């Protein structure tokens, strides 16, 4: 069953048709399988955006309530570390895109290499984050009840750090999960499982990684720069 011919969702492209590759029992063509996987990933990314969307909402609400406190608290974040991490992630997005490209062009060695660089970037990001967190904890810049930093002019700075730790914490968790996924496709790539006909997992993980970067690209200016 090729995609329905009278379907409004584009008919399958015969040129892309790539029979013979291991297709799961319930699919007819590799294209169908690949299109399904890609659509699945995109939908998953939509749910991720909504998931973070709730936190962004909370951020904007509390920021408008406690504007001064947020601005003040924001000065306690380390802009340099944040900026370094932003660069690291943007760079890792690039290497991820290159990895996907290499997979598409059957270049196994480069695929593995680019994935490895991406993985290292992710690791570097976490190391920087670790130093930031220990610093915050040491200074008592903590959420809600735990906030005990001295010398704040405005009340409710604890709210800023509640949002900060929730957002960066959940983002960090995504980075960790991303590292696991990258490792997984790296091993598979090393085994030569991907080719120009089958690279859906690489692309899927790539899309996920871009989302993780994208979230950070919003988090950095909001938390570190404007507060």
């Amino acid at each position, binding site marked *: *069953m090729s995609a*329905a011919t009278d379907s409004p969702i584009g008919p399958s492209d015969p040129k892309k048709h790539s029979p013979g590759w291991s297709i799961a029992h319930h699919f007819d063509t590799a294209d169908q399988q690949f299109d399904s996987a890609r*659509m*699945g990933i995109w939908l998953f990314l939509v*749910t991720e955006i909504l998931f973070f969307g709730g936190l962004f909402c909370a951020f904007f609400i*509390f920021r408008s309530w406690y504007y001064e406190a947020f601005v003040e608290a924001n000065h306690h974040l380390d802009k340099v570390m944040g900026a370094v991490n932003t660069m690291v992630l943007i760079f890792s997005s690039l290497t991820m895109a290159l990895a996907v490209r290499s997979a598409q062009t059957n270049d196994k060695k480069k695929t593995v290499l680019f994935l490895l660089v991406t993985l290292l970037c992710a690791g570097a990001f976490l190391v920087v984050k670790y130093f930031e967190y220990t610093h915050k904890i040491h200074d008592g810049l903590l959420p809600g*009840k735990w906030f005990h930093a001295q010398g704040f002019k405005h009340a409710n700075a604890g*709210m800023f750090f509640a949002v900060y730790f929730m957002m960066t914490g959940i983002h960090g968790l995504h980075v960790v999960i991303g590292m696991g996924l990258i490792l997984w496709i790296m091993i598979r790539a090393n085994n030569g499982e991907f080719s120009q006909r089958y690279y859906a997992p690489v692309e899927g993980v790539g899309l996920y990684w871009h989302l993780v970067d994208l979230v950070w690209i919003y988090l950095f200016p909001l938390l570190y720069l404007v507060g």
Partner: protein
Amino acid sequence: MSVAVPGAGTEKHEHGHGSPPGSNYWNAEKGLWSWLTTVDHKRIGIMYLISTLIAFSLGGFFALLLRLELLTPRKTIMSPAMYNQAFTLHGAIMVFLFIIPSIPGALGNFFLPIMIGAKDVAFPKLNLLSLYLYWTGALFTLGSLVAGGLETGWTFYVPYSSTTSGAVIMVTFGVFVAGFSSILTGLNFIVTIHKLRAPGVSWYRLPLFLWATYSTSVVQILATPVLAITLLLLIFERAFHIGIFDPALGGDAVLFQHFFWFYSHPAVYIMILPGFGLISELIAVHAKRKIFGYKAIAFSSVAIALIGFLVWGHHMFVAGQSEMAATIFSFLTFLVAIPTGVKLFNWISTLWRSSITYSTPMVYAIAFLFLFAIGGLTGLFLGMLAVDVHLHDTYFVVAHFHYVMMGGTVFAFVGALHHWWPKITGRMFNEKLGRISGIVMFIGFNMTFFTQFILGSRGMPRRYYNYLDQFQPLHQFSTVGSWVIGLAFLIVLYNLATSLKSGAKAPDNPWGGMSLEWQTETPPPTENFRVTPKVTHGPYDYSNDPNATGASDS
């Protein structure tokens, strides 16, 4: 123009691993392990069916308990603390473990791929993962029973939920996990409908159940993540006092309600849309008539799903949101009624010049029309600002949502369970008992819940362990009604259980249906169709072909 199933004109498209003749999804493999590791959407559907029915029985058991407590004011059989747990677990189980996963998980899983002529859903392993996530979520939720209980109400409002004792974190985590199950199921269904339709199954040839499932899936994907983050925030609030919802730390208790209802209002459409879809199937097949207003019904599902995202504030008219917000939410609430009305009008028009059998599914479908109309219309009372101020958090609201959830979704579900029982199990149930169960349930239901409209508008608040003496007669009547509902379910249970042993063998198409699930064997083989079907007409094209109507009851 009947469906070109195994015959001329059908594209031969075998994949070389069709199951042997005579085998079906049920006997293809044996043993518990083969079930637990299956990726067959039908088997996963069956496991969902069993699990959600167990959840329903448990939820119903708590309902009977709490109704019994309300037989008298003050203490009848339990302490206030136990009562509070009873209605919380009743609500949480019914909502998160029964009504949201049941129709998509059980009937959607079983029939969606068959109805589009596919061999399975797009991601069979993900489908199995959904089921395991559901089980994990259920385990955590029910674990609260032994781990300190839960008495926050199913709405988990802060600051009560962030300060009270009990297993709040455990349950919210359970609901969080079950939420991912819901998201993955929705994602799977959307991709399946987009990518796996058999030749000839165009969008306008999708059975209406699938349009409804599709709209439901969209809501699941867009709303559930917000519930996830809300629950996560609640867990952190409770565990670490991060202060987001705690006024003492500068947080906002009402913000939680916004977050919660941003999910939970759309969630009521996750609960009802699949029911709407089922009703379209039941009415068309058992009245053997082309559905009236196919496109109107299809697109009204989408409209309900979308407008449903903009009305959540109607749960908070007296919660201290701004007057402007309340006004806008009230206005938008009324707009949802229009696509819903369109559905009802079209279903009733489908009965016009049709050929109605008084079969069990039809009895449930008619009961649905009656009960859902009441439930929906009383929603309008609640949408009216001034009137809701009086009715909010009274038994009027309790009655409203039981009319839509139980009178609507559950009646549709039980009707559809009978409708597809022969296809799923290969056995016919006792028609007479089936009809009786429907009528008894209808009577018991109205006894239980119509009473509650009166109770509520006269001044009876909800979640009350004790109540003013003057309300006792109505409460007693309601409690007796709940026993009648229980009796009806025992009849259903008996009827379906005995059919498995002694029911007649079901033919492939007992009701003369036109959609694809009736064109394959009963029970279906593992790959659903021995030959990929090629569809040449819509799912309800009864009237074009006089022979088609005659081909029933084979």
